[in-house]
């Protein structure tokens, strides 16, 4: 049973089992004191095998990579994609209901460091629609 990670995920190196060791990558990062260090991650595209594969699919971190995983999960492709988007929002700290709707609709893709929206592919269309609605109401 296999699953493929959608996005880079931090790894707790203290809990890595021998089977998972080959999957760990190290990337530059900062420690708590802001000193450069190497951070353990599982990179996007990593294939997990076994029970962990199903767990990662259920959380939305991964998608089934073989028929066994897809059967065990029992979700349609749309459900898998929907859960991927839900997880992405959780990981990015997008918890506000209105912001989650905007993210799902492609209006925003996250937040800047100052909390402002990062425009998504539908940002312009969304604001155009708002302006047209306001014009119609006048």
């Amino acid at each position, binding site marked *: 049973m296999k699953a493929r990670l959608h996005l880079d995920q*931090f790894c707790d190196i203290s809990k890595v089992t021998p089977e998972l060791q080959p999957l760990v990558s190290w990337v530059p990062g900062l420690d*708590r004191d802001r000193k450069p260090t190497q951070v353990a991650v599982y990179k996007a595209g990593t294939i997990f095998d076994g029970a962990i594969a199903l*767990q990662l699919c259920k959380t939305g971190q991964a998608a089934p990579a073989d028929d066994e995983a897809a059967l065990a999960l029992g979700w349609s492709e749309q459900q898998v994609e929907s859960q991927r988007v839900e997880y992405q929002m959780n990981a990015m700290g997008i*918890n506000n209901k209105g912001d989650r709707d905007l993210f799902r609709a492609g209006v925003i893709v996250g*937040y800047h*460091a100052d909390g402002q929206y990062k425009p998504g592919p539908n940002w312009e269309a969304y604001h155009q629609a708002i302006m047209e609605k306001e014009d119609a109401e006048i």
Partner: protein
Amino acid sequence: MPNKVPSKGTALLMEISSVYTAFPQITSLSVAGEKAETVDTTTLDGGAAKTKAHTGYVENASISGECLYDPDDTVHIAFIGKVRTPAVNNFKVTYADATPTSEIYAGVGFGFDKSASPADMLRGSFTIETTGAVT
């Protein structure tokens, strides 16, 4: 120069099978109580001002928060599993600053309350007592 960092974008991640997994549907999060421990060293023959000294220990932080509870959610299930079968579990708090800054806490004592009321969604309230140094 200090920046005004928004709360939105802050995330709590729970280690599950070595993978840090975002805790879903959090509506508030608090990391509180980390404090250098002191002891009163005032003596009978001392001056008017009381004195204190470090013990050399640091009181650990506790993490608490609220979420929209989903009984079928994998992470919520895993967290409640830690309440019922306690074991040390690492948690990562990621802030929304430019870096962004992350801190890892070793959780050792867990609690999860659920509440349902006609005018609200199903909600969960969680607490995590931590142990050891923050990394």
